[in-house]
């Protein structure tokens, strides 16, 4: 639970992002300031092209800001190199994508084990942790199935299991329900809510649907490369 006055888990200060150069240059972010408290469930909303994904990529250490500061646990990480950011992702972050992005022809279990492999866990520990994560998303019985044998909702739940198997601090989800019907979407939102509440994982989620954003505690509205407004608690969405 975030306490009032405590240090935010993540701070963006005056973050800008420019793509391309010269005439073709495009200013996707124009100075984003954002504080994210540990344990928050934040929905990111805004029109198409407003910079939501760009911000998420920076928060996910997949990309770096052109200017501005990015603080994680009070440490400046905006200028870290490729490998250092990869190690940060491995240790602290989990990703859920709109397109699920599971490895094809690979069982759910092996997909979930993948991050542990890079972490260097031995086979036993990998298996146990992966099964526990699949249990959390309610898919232990489907462990040996490959993505093509799973429904979209199930695939996304496997992807969530893969994201949480390393016990990350932050779960980043860019339109996680974008490819799902509303019933499956609600299942995913309930799952994210549960992970946020029971395991204290900070959840950052981009969505276009107010119905999904309603699950969040905080909602950030983007417009034109800037944070337009942040609403919290009952005022959200």
């Amino acid at each position, binding site marked *: 639970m975030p306490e009032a006055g405590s240090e935010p888990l993540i701070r963006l200060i005056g973050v800008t992002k420019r793509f391309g150069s010269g005439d073709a240059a495009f200013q996707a972010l124009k100075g984003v300031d954002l504080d994210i408290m540990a344990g928050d469930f934040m929905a990111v909303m805004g029109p198409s092209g407003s910079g939501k994904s760009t911000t998420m990529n920076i928060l996910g250490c*997949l990309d770096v800001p052109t200017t501005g500061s990015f603080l994680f*646990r009070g440490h400046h990480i905006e200028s870290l190199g490729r*490998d250092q950011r990869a*190690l940060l992702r*491995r240790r602290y972050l989990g990703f859920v994508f709109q397109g699920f992005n599971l490895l094809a022809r690979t069982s759910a279990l092996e997909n979930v084990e993948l991050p542990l492999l890079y972490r*260097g866990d031995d086979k036993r520990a990998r298996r146990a942790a992966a099964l526990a994560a699949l249990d959390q998303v309610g898919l232990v019985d489907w462990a040996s199935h490959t993505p093509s044998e799973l429904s979209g909702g199930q695939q996304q739940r496997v992807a969530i299991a893969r994201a949480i198997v390393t016990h990350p601090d932050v779960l980043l989800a860019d339109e996680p329900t974008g490819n799902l019907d509303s019933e499956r979407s609600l299942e995913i939102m309930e799952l994210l809510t549960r992970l946020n509440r029971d395991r204290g994982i900070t959840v950052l989620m981009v969505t276009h649907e107010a119905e999904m954003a309603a699950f969040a505690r905080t909602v950030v509205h983007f417009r034109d490369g800037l944070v337009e407004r942040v609403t919290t608690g009952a005022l959200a969405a």
Partner: protein
Amino acid sequence: MTEADAPPPPGRASTTRLVGTTVLLALRAIRRHLLRSILTVLGIVIGVFAVVTIVTLGKGATESTRQQISSLGANILTVLPGQAAGRGGGGETPPPFKFEDLDAIRDQVAGVTAVAPQAQSSATAVHNAANWSTTVNGTTDSYLDAQDWKIEDGRRFTDAEEQAGKSVCLMGSTVKQNLYPGEAPVGSTLRLGNVSCTVIGTLATRGAGGFGQDNDDTVLMPIKAVQRRFTGNRDIRAIIVSADPAYDSADVQESIAKLLRERRNISGGKLDDFTIFDSRQIADTLSGITNILTGIVGAVAAISLLVGGIGIMNIMLVSVTERTREIGIRLAIGAVAREVMLQFLVEAVVLSCLGGLIGLVLALFASLGLAAALNVPFVFDPWTNLTAFLFSGLIGVVFGYFPARRAAALNPIDALRYE
């Protein structure tokens, strides 16, 4: 500060762990794309198979030549009238050798252990109802010494038989097999054309000669008998000289040539009207040719290995493109570039080593079969096999490097978005 509050940059990825992980990942990827993996390594399989089979058979052929040389025993020089093939011609026929030439060589040339004359004729050998066409070799007892040829049964020629040119003979094993199946020939009478002779002994088997001729398909008689009853003249068609291995055979050859030039009145600038063949030289030349041929064919086969390597690179590049999304996922969940690179590199190396291994196994069976079919000994050369295997691994490294680097350089955001 709790453990979870530790400063973010969590240090570096361990390298030893990395290799184990990437080998596992590579094996999984190969298993996932089994058919494509097999097709990928086909070039390597064929390349290694071809090179190793050819080199193995070549070594076998060289070995068989070497065995034949050593079976000849001491170094043997064969002196024939006339010039070496390709030269001369048109001139008068050079005179044959005389018995006195043999005596001179035996007495005056250092390093000579035995000297034997040879006069040859072909004849049909008949015993009971069977007949067999063979070569009658007229010579002396020294011939057996020069060639280090053992008597299997019976005895050698006596001096008296040689001097008188008696109609006695020693029989080679091929003739014996064909005319005396299951019989002891010694003491029997053999008809050679219209000449009858008494078999006084049989010769031990010598096997095929350097040119594939059958050394055992012969009947030996005292040279005077052959001259009188077969050739009808007193010509000696060849002199067989065995040289002491302690002497340089080139020196012995030179001394014989000098002596014969003197005896045959060949002065100063005139060319020899005789030729001396050195068994070892012939054998060396033969195995030299075998080696060169093996080298050339092996090199051609090695090109197919190279083509196999390019095949691997090609498929790996396709694989990198096709698996762009996969690479994006790996990078997003925290793989460092090095790990992605290593995974693809290991995949290439594992594939090519696998191909090399399959090629080696196929080559083993093929060269066993072919060696038997071509009648050359099978020589398993660990170095050839090891080199071919290591080379296939090297091909994996070389041709896997570029695609692997390309995979590792991908930007995770673009890779994830890749359709």
